[in-house]
């Protein structure tokens, strides 16, 4: 080994593979650890992943087969759907690349070492570009697998179809990565990196919310009723609305559909690859000019001052009745939440989720003139419980699941102080669950009001959703303790981890169990109504079912909390 400064260093320049070496070694090490540590986890992941793929494949296959029954426009529609899908995925990719590029190019821990080493800027750019692309595209790529498999199966794509898809999708993934990295590079040169992160998080979440709202308000359900359009031209014109022939999403969709329809037109592929190549060259040129100054600026500019002294005084007064330790703990959690843009900005997504949910309920074709049967309304209101429960579980995954992980590197302080961990756990439980309970009761009451539910169903829904929310809060918190992510730098990434998936599955299972328990007395009531028998809806059967639901939720609340408390007490940091 040679460390002397008197002799020049010779040898091969550092390659892209060498720069990325620690990354892929870490992935293998983690996989090895997962494999040896928890076979059950892997099995669970395979079951969940396999189930999701199979479900998506079946839906996509069914839709494409259904479209195939109208020969004139079937293939056209399939191509349009693919193009719309790629457009949606492309927007998500662009936004996620913006945020990821900031981390990989400017905030990652390995950058000090790489920038201070004699690494060629071009190779550093390509290495970081690859890393950004993999980080921000893997989920979209996985989502596309079952959908494109369905395309291949319905249109008989053949064994070479995956290669054709790869040929179209690689440049499609590369384009938003280069553009995202370039925009981030420019922003970092204008704003300090931490401000840029806040700005990007806001832009990204706002834009995702906007895209979801836009797609929802386009009323895609109308496309399933072509008879609603005056003629075919109107219909196709409506379909063309969000795309453009000069969009890469259109080229990628055309390249895939050309293969499936056996059209020998290499233009879309040529356009994709030449554009991708050109933007990489332009991106590298921009990188060489702006990266050194941008990287230097990225090391500056942490937040200094804080606002919101008035609400802090109000919160302190409101929580004045609590013991000191609990009060200070809750105040600390609130301060940290509202000062961290990556955390509070998720409220935007929450608002979008709730708006879309209420809009979906309003869009149900229930009250379109004719008298709606009591049976149908009761059934829809009953099933609405499931939907509301799912929305609440998603909110709990975003806000309650990460709360213990976020203590992260500060756990030494909590563990070495005389803080009662039980008190800490319950504080976190109520800080997360109390607002969730309010949201739960409000959305259930509002959607039931839209559906014009009977007082009986309104009561049943409110009681059920309250019980479920308490349990979902406990499950989210507890599974967050059992599957912690103490080293994460971004709170938004925690809910999509393995533990987050396990929580969502557990919550859905609990929801299914509740619905099954309540289904019997509700269906008995409806059958009696159908038969023209006047019955009291609050039958002994229903009360018994409610007792069972209450018991089920109490178990799902207390058991996980107890287990997580034990884990927290035994936790070594």
């Amino acid at each position, binding site marked *: 080994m040679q460390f002397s400064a008197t002799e020049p260093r010779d040898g091969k320049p550092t390659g892209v593979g060498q720069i990325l070496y620690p990354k892929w070694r870490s992935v293998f090490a983690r996989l090895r650890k997962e494999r040896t540590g928890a076979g059950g986890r892997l099995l669970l992941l395979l079951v969940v992943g396999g189930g999701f793929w199979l479900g998506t494949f079946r839906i996509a296959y069914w839709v494409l087969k259904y479209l195939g029954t109208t020969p004139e426009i079937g293939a056209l529609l399939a191509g349009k759907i693919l193009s719309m899908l790629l457009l949606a995925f492309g927007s998500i990719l662009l936004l996620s690349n913006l945020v990821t590029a900031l981390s990989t190019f400017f905030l990652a821990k390995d950058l000090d070492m790489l920038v201070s080493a004699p690494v060629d800027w071009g190779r550093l750019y390509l290495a970081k570009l690859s890393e950004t692309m993999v980080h921000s595209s893997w989920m979209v790529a996985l989502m596309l697998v079952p959908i494109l498999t369905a395309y291949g199966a319905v249109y008989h794509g053949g064994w070479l179809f995956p290669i054709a898809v790869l040929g179209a999708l690689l440049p499609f993934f590369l384009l938003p990565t280069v553009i995202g990295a370039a925009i981030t590079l420019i922003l970092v040169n204008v704003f300090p990196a931490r401000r840029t992160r806040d700005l990007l998080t806001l832009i990204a979440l706002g834009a995702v919310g906007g895209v979801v709202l836009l797609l929802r308000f386009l009323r895609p359900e109308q496309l399933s009723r072509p008879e609603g359009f005056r003629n075919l031209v109107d219909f196709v014109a409506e379909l063309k609305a969000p795309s453009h022939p000069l969009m890469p999403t259109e080229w990628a969709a055309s390249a895939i559909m050309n293969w499936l329809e056996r059209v020998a037109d290499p233009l879309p592929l040529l356009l994709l690859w030449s554009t991708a190549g050109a933007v990489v060259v332009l991106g590298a040129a921009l990188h060489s000019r702006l990266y050194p100054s941008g990287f230097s600026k990225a090391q500056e500019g942490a937040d*200094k001052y804080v606002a919101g002294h008035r609400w802090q005084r109000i919160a302190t007064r409101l929580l004045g009745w609590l013991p*000191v330790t609990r009060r*200070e703990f809750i105040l*600390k959690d609130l301060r*940290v939440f509202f*000062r961290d843009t990556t955390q509070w900005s998720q409220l935007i997504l929450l608002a979008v989720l709730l708006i879309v949910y209420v809009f979906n309920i309003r869009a149900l074709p229930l009250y379109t003139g004719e008298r709606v049967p009591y049976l149908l309304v009761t059934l829809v209101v009953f099933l609405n419980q499931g939907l509301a429960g799912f929305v609440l579980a998603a909110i709990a995954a975003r806000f309650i699941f990460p709360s213990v992980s976020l203590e992260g590197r500060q756990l030494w302080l909590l563990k070495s102080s005389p803080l009662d961990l039980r008190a800490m756990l319950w504080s976190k439980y109520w800080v997360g669950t109390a607002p969730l309970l309010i949201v739960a009761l409000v959305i259930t009451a509002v959607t039931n009001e839209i559906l014009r539910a009977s007082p009986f169903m309104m009561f049943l829904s409110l009681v059920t959703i309250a019980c479920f929310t308490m349990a979902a809060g406990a499950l989210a918190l507890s599974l967050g303790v059992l599957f912690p992510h103490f080293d994460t730098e971004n709170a938004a990434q925690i809910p999509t981890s393995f533990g987050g998936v396990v929580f969502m599955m557990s919550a859905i299972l609990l929801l299914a169990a509740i619905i099954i328990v309540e289904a019997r007395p509700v269906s008995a009531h409806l059958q009696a109504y159908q038969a023209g028998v006047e019955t009291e809806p609050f039958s002994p059967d229903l009360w018994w079912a409610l007792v069972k639901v209450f018991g089920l939720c109490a178990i799902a609340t207390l058991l996980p909390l107890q287990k997580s408390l034990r884990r927290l007490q*035994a936790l*070594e940091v």
Partner: protein
Amino acid sequence: MIALHQLTKRYGKFTAVDSVSLEIPRGMLYGLLGPNGAGKTTTMRMIAGILRPTSGAITVAGNDIIRQPMEAKQRLGFIPDRPFVYDKLTGAEFLRFVAGLYGQSGPEIDRRVDELLELFELTPWKHELTESYSHGMRQKLIISSALVHRPEVIVVDEPMIGLDPKSARLLKDIFRRFVARGGTVLMSTHTLEIAEVMCDQIGIVLAGKVAAAGTMAEIRVQTSSGTASLEDVFLKLTGGHNERELSAILGD
């Protein structure tokens, strides 16, 4: 004040701390020395109640850390080697939060917080988020947080890292005065000069075991080191480098 009895910590087959027994009485500043990976930090984290011992017992001010953790921790202030604090709290908010963890609040704590910030020259930054603090400022904030609840025992892992000479001197004075008033300090350090000057007694840990312990004079006798300095005793116990290794590394 701190008593370790046959303290052992194993990670699988690896024994990080091996049957360590120590008595540190009231009014003593005790230095724990040892090479990297000797088990000093593990020992300190067990005393602080962060790690659970595999076997053995720890008492702090007469309270068993496993059986009476609340009572033991109430009397203890812990300063870790790495200054991780909540980035989104200001310095003053962080200190008030830590006081709250020990069940203390109100005007008395507000005054105490101001005093500590003044002492460590952090007052100009008291309303700024800690994410804008330098490493040394964070270290000073953590030291303040260990003092905010007026502990009887301080366990401190590598206290001088990141401190400027003035703050290092201040910390030495604080520890000496704390001990003079009947407090107890257990400190790990790699700075042998500081240990030699500051500590009443020293323990040298090697591979999880106490290789030598006592006053400097007692350690010299135990290691047959005559009038050697602590550095020479330490290197004699841990094994130093040789000239050939250095030449190879420096490329002579």
